[in-house]
């Protein structure tokens, strides 16, 4: 394992026609790090990944993976990178074993040689070895795709939205596998639209509109939330939403599960004061049985805050 940063991206720009899919994206990934790019569809994640795995040329900026330039050292990198594209990109008419065997052959190796690397995933897949890939469940398809990306024992993994459209339990199992691989020292860059998956990463960048909004360890991102945040509960959610949005100091009000998250626009206001004023406000709107309490911001709160800032700018 080399000591070079796993990824160094500097000012990456990519345009499609007049639209810029990436605006000067810079970040780096340390050796052995599990790095998350968190953002919705259309944020530019796939474009960024395709540049990093040598499939697309940047219009400006540079990127090095494993210390090699993604434009110049194309052929060196292609045998060292493991990549799982966003769409399910295996052959549905071939069996699990045939798919895996084909990708092994593609990298001039065999399933037997890769056995140790893929063992943790293969134990879950083995019972389906003869089944057509197209007949697998969503979660199993993703595991097979991961297996195929690992079969040539790559030195870094790029996974573009590996858990999209997969149920919550399969997603959890998939992240458990990634954690195992990371523990063995494999650097992994993974993108996801699911905010709750950010906590499984060592570091994350929140991405929106072709820009990285913020980069930090997941725990720090919530801690950096710049305004007072309260969870407000009540029986009439829709009425409460309207009432809170009508409060003069409201910066943002969004439904979060069974509660509403209220962000106050005043940076230094005390929670007691906000609670008092809000209680009076909702009462005057004719709502009763409302409770509220200050909470720590989640990644998703942070994402929405930075995204709104970005859109306002």
């Amino acid at each position, binding site marked *: 394992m080399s000591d070079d940063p796993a990824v160094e991206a500097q000012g990456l720009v990519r345009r499609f026609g007049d639209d810029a899919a990436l605006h000067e994206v810079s970040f780096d990934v340390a050796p052995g790090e599990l790095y998350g790019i968190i953002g919705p569809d259309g944020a530019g994640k796939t474009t960024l990944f395709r540049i990093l795995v*040598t499939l697309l040329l940047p219009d400006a900026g540079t990127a090095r993976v494993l210390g090699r330039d993604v434009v110049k050292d194309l052929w060196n990198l292609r045998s060292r990178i493991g990549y799982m594209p966003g769409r399910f990109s295996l052959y549905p008419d071939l069996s699990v074993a045939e798919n895996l065997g084909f990708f092994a*052959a593609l990298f*001039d190796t065999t399933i037997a040689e890769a056995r140790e690397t893929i063992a943790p995933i293969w134990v879950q897949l083995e019972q389906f070895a003869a089944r057509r890939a197209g007949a697998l469940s969503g979660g199993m398809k993703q595991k097979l795709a991961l297996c195929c990306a690992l079969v040539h024992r790559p030195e870094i993994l790029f996974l573009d939205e590996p858990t999209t459209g997969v149920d919550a339990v399969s997603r959890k199992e998939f992240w458990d596998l990634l954690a195992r691989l990371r523990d063995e020292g494999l650097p992994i860059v993974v993108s996801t639209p699911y905010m709750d998956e950010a906590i499984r990463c060592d570091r994350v960048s929140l991405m929106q509109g072709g820009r990285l909004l913020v980069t930090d360890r997941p725990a720090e991102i919530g801690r950096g939330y710049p305004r007072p945040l309260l969870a407000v509960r009540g029986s009439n959610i829709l009425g409460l939403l309207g009432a809170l949005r009508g409060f003069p100091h409201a910066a943002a009000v969004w439904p979060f599960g069974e509660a509403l998250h209220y962000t106050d626009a005043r940076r230094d206001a005390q929670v007691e004061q906000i609670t008092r004023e809000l209680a009076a406000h909702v009462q005057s709107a004719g709502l009763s049985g409302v409770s509220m309490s200050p909470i720590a911001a989640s990644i998703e709160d942070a994402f929405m805050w930075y995204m709104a800032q970005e859109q306002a700018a």
Partner: protein
Amino acid sequence: MRAFVGFVRKETLHLLRDRQTLAILLLFPVVQVLIFGFAVRTDVRDIAIAIVDPTPDVATLELRERIDASDRFHIVGVAPSARGLDPQFRGGAIRQALVLPAGVERRLGRGDSLPVQLLTDGSDPNTGGIMQGYATAIVERWYRDAVPATGALRIEARARMRYNPTLESSHLFVPGLVAFVLTIVSALMTAISISREKETGTMEMLLVSPIRPTAIVAGKVMPYIGLGFVSVLLVLVAARAVFGVPLRGSLVLLLAESGLYIVTALALGIVISTKAPNQRTAMIAALAGLMMPTLLLSGFIFPLDSLPRVLQYLSYAVPARWFLTIVRGIMIKGAGLATLWQETLILMGMTLFLLAKGSRGLAIRLG
């Protein structure tokens, strides 16, 4: 090498797994042979003919017998005069009528000229011409046998259809079918199989691997080369079994030339797939861009001589035209490389050009 073998294996599996497509591909050559052999055949059988014989005698009876004995004709009536023929033609009761003069035997004995009139339904000029040919042939032979040799020099103008003396059209369509079937199987399937990888996103997985695009394509097309040979053999066997079409030249040479043309067609498929973003576009491009020229500009359906000058020049650019000439030469004339080397060289040149163009069009990246 492992990657190449892996590709051949994978592509073969795709082919075997898709039973419906495979069945269509294997039935296609046979069905084409049957369609062209039975339905579209241009030779004519069982022609209803009327004879006008004002003074029947030994000579005319001999002629009538000869006509009736041929499986191409059956005599539906013998009349003393030509009156009444028109309504029979119009009603479709007869397609031909042979009008003999009076006193045939006497005229023959004296060595007089014999004004024989042959009326033919010309509503389909092609069939008309063929019927005319059949009837004339029988009458001429009968005349030759009937007139005793006089020692005087007789100049006889006669046309003989060379290589296909009986005018069997099933012999002529087989070479065209070989070209047509190979174009469809090889070019279309290659174009579809490559554009399918683009469409489903698997091309992305192939591109990030250390395999060069040329190796990807080479591995992908191998099974289709095999399928191409199978198709050629199917056409030949079906044509022989059902219509007795002979192969006069060398089978080895025919297969070698077919191999060359398969590569030409694959290269065409590759060129199409480098331009087409998805299967649908690839399929339409292959059908419109290849099938029509192969059918119309190769000499398969229309003789090249009968095409407008512009289309004749255009046909020089159609690989199927050269391949068709080669296959006709081998199958029908029994020709060898000594006479077909020019066409072979032209086809090779075209193939190299297409391969170069196709491999240059293969991207090492997306977009």
